[in-house]
């Protein structure tokens, strides 16, 4: 397959190079566009965790939709459990497979530095998605690859979601952040965002590791609440934590105003809990776009040398005001 050009490849390459040459950019870009469109390789979206998580299942759906819309092969890859090293191995495998473009995350940017440099040397364009890399790593990636970031600043998104609690909690309230995936940099940033949103309350904050198994997570939170009965709010960092918190509070028959919940990521349980008032608000990361947009941008870069060249953001909040509309979208698999 590799190395053999069919008519469609040649047409793509010619159109891509011609348009780029006549309209858009200088010679280097044209050469790159020609080379990439001629590769006719696969577009890879490589995450730090697999589609077993509902959040990533929606990203995968976005990737598939982009592949279908653009008429290219686009696949989503990710290890079965959280593992940046395995993610790096998969990016390396995609480079060896002569990918047309690679999208990846910066859950652990140090791990991704080597593979992205290899991709740059191989002439494969890359895009960061999900969460931007930290500033101290930005310099390492300042050589034009990754060509863009597509995602959300989770710190801002989390701050917006938690700010909804300010009128509902007393000053100095005890709150707990439950973490199902310790070691994930993005979740720590999200935690920081939550606390920023309620900073005016000067809350007493504790962090609790609950693991990735829902039953165990419920019992860990239960034990925590027994020891800390004055807890006024639970912040969750993903659907798994929200499920555990909602299940426990329902079991305890706690009133909605006794312990408030702010969550992250959208699914049926979270949306239903928002409708019932059990969850005050949740971060809506709109991850379908994280799957779709980077593939589209890489395609445009390869075919027309269009350089996105900037931060393309997404993400919002779901609360009682828009929960019905978001529920409709979730039923269609777009959340």
């Amino acid at each position, binding site marked *: *397959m*590799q*190395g053999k050009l069919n008519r469609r490849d040649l047409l793509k390459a010619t159109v891509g190079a011609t348009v780029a040459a006549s309209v858009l950019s200088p010679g280097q870009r044209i050469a790159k566009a020609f080379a990439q469109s001629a590769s006719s390789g*696969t577009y*890879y979206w490589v995450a730090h965790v*697999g*589609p*077993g998580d509902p959040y990533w299942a929606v990203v995968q759906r976005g990737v598939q939709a982009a592949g279908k819309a653009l008429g290219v*092969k686009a*696949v*989503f*890859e*990710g*290890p*079965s*459990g*959280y*593992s*940046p*090293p395995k993610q*790096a*191995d*998969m990016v*390396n*495998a*995609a*480079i*060896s*497979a*002569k990918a047309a473009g690679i999208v990846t995350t910066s859950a*652990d*940017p*140090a*791990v991704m*530095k*080597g593979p992205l*440099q*290899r991709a740059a*040397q*191989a002439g494969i364009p890359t895009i960061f998605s999900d969460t931007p890399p930290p500033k*101290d*790593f930005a310099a*390492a990636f300042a050589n034009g690859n990754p060509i863009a970031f597509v995602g959300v600043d989770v710190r801002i998104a989390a701050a917006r979601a938690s700010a909804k609690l300010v009128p509902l909690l007393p000053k100095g309230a005890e709150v707990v952040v439950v*973490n199902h*995936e*310790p*070691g*994930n*940099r993005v979740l*720590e940033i999200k935690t920081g965002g939550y606390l920023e949103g309620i900073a005016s309350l000067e809350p007493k904050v504790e962090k609790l*590791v609950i693991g990735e198994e829902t039953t165990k997570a419920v019992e860990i939170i239960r034990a925590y609440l027994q020891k800390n009965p004055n807890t006024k709010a639970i912040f969750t960092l993903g659907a798994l934590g929200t499920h555990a918190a909602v299940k426990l509070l329902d079991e305890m028959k706690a009133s909605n105003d006794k312990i408030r919940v702010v969550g992250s990521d959208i699914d049926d349980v979270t949306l239903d809990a928002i409708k019932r008032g059990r969850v005050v608000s949740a971060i809506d990361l709109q991850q379908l776009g994280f799957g779709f947009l980077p593939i589209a941008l890489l395609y445009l870069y390869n075919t027309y040398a269009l350089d996105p060249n900037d931060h393309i953001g997404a993400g919002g909040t779901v609360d009682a005001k828009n929960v019905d509309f978001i529920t409709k979208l979730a039923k269609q698999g777009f959340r």
Partner: protein
Amino acid sequence: MLSRRRELGAVIAIAVTYSVFAYLNPAFLTWATFGGILTIAAEIGTITIGEGVLMVSGEFDLSVGSNFTFSAIVLGMLLKAAVPAAISVLTVLGMAALIGLLNGLITLRTRIPSFITTLGTLFFWNGMALWVTGGWPISFIAPLPVLNVLGNSTPSPASSLHVSAAWWAAAAIIFWIMLENTRYGNWIYGTGGKTEAARAIGVPVDRVKLINFTLCGLLAGLAGALQLGRMMSISPVRSGLELEAIASAVVGGVSLFGGMGTVLGMVLGTIALASIEVGLVAAGAPSFWYTAFVGCVIIVIVVINTQLDQLIFTRRS
């Protein structure tokens, strides 16, 4: 002859893997891809050698994944504290060996199955890793020379092959000599195969097991150091490498009941599973197929090995 050819299953797995994935994507049959496979295999392969030799002597170590992570974390912390590189590496390897020794002492003194002992220490060292890091990965922005030596160096800037593969090869050669060409190697086969008979002819069975637990821990720590070197970062999250190591050893022909297995088989078994991992990505298949594939491969290989065992038994009788 056939009793030492249990690695045949891994050879078949590699042949089938390469045929299928090369057909699906010819780029799979390149040095770049093979370099990537060897790099992936280096860390898990180093663990597999320790685990496999321990299995040949009739014991298991489920804590190798946690030992791997904890050792890498301690190495990262020492290096960040500006402790000299050689002292840091030797300290961590010593600590990893002690973790293995502890597993052996608990198992042999209390006579509880190593499966239980090391299940406990798996959780213990995982908890310690999370505790000392607070859940954060330990990362290096600029590579230190020691990290380059351990795993980050490549023959050329664009190469997918890393120096960690050389460390793995060195470990494989040393353990191959030990297992195949020394009296201690015979003791290992005797200890795992016919324990009471070995004891009767004077083989120090418990000492053999204790040494193998220690070596297993040492190699888990070395593998952790290799990954820290290659990735310049280590996460405290549980790696789950213990099951991959056991799977690689089994695919390579190591018997779950002890007494059988070769270092060559362990190496081939690791390459077979790493090839499947890379091949699925190269073919553009969803990566969650990997675990399903590995499950099928293990069953097929064990069936092949069982048939081989029956053939050997029939010929002998």
